[in-house]
């Protein structure tokens, strides 16, 4: 695979993973600022190792052991279940039906909780390590899911997805270190909107490939599929704005 092809193949995983890394970085930053950096960095490192093992075992096993068509149908189904859920939430947020995801609010809430727990200077900060470990592992599991999903096409696709996810991690972590503040400038809700559409489009694509359907233009068919999801999502947000012009800001569980 040449560099340009690799970049194109790695881009969806890069964008999707970046969203998850932003959320994990917010928590790790909050721990580091309130309780010192040693424990959260060790927690982050432990979670990264755990994730590498999960991706290596699950991803490589899935790609190499499960028959190709069955794998594509399985991964396509999972992508649709999670992708359409993300897309639905993003549309409801844009229409003002549920509250927007705000990294600054999450960061301040996390700071207050961590400060309230107090800090023992004499021993290793287990609370800081565990909070960072959990945040990185949970968001990282979603990254692992994204990598396995985008890498379902075979070894090259898996490698490209891994490259995209690692690059996203490096960029987000470097930005977090440089700014020492949550990455509120990242248009997270827009990215989630795009990621939901991308995951759903890949879900349709893989599921149909699993049924041995030939797409016109092969992977290029992904472009009109993503476009269809984006157009319908935009129109749906407009429809919701007509139903509730003032918005609602209700709990996601109530709609």
């Amino acid at each position, binding site marked *: 695979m040449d560099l340009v092809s690799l970049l194109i193949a790695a881009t969806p995983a890069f964008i999707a993973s970046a969203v998850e890394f932003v959320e994990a970085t917010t928590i790790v930053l909050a721990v580091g600022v309130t309780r010192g950096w040693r424990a959260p960095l060790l927690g982050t490192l432990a979670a990264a190792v755990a994730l590498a093992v999960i991706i290596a075992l699950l991803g490589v096993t899935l790609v190499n052991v499960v028959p190709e068509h069955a794998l594509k*149908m399985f991964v396509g*189904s999972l992508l*649709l*279940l*999670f992708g*359409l*859920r993300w*897309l*639905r939430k993003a*549309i*409801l947020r844009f*229409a003002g*039906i549920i509250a927007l995801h705000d990294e600054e609010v999450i960061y301040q809430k996390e700071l207050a909780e961590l400060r309230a727990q107090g800090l023992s200077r004499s021993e290793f900060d287990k609370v800081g390590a565990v909070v960072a470990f*959990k945040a990185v*592992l*949970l968001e990282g*599991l979603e990254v692992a899911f994204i990598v396995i999903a985008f890498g379902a096409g075979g070894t090259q696709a898996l490698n490209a997805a891994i490259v995209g996810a690692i690059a996203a991690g490096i960029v987000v972590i470097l930005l977090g270190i440089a700014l020492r503040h949550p990455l509120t400038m990242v248009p997270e809700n827009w990215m989630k909107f795009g990621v939901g559409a991308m995951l*759903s489009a890949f879900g*349709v*694509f893989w*599921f*149909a490939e699993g*049924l*041995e*359907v*030939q*797409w016109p233009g092969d992977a290029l*068919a992904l472009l009109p*599929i993503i476009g*269809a*999801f984006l157009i*319908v*999502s935009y*129109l*749906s947000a407009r*429809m*919701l704005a007509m*139903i*509730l012009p003032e918005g*609602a800001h*209700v709990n*996601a*569980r*109530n*709609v």
Partner: protein
Amino acid sequence: MLKGVWENVYGLLVEDGQLAVGIVVSLVVIWAAATYGGSALHENAGWLLLALLLALVVVNLYAAGHNARHKISA
């Protein structure tokens, strides 16, 4: 970690249960159509799945909008 997994499963099955059921039904319908429905259906199964899912999203969001309107007016 278990809490996070549980929240995802709960969210998928309860919060977005109707959407999840709709997706699974759409996948089964398209699988049946592509497998038993002749070559024309098989060739166009991908586009049919896309159309079904787009319709599902619009209907689900329309219902969500009306649910939210009832919640705030109640």
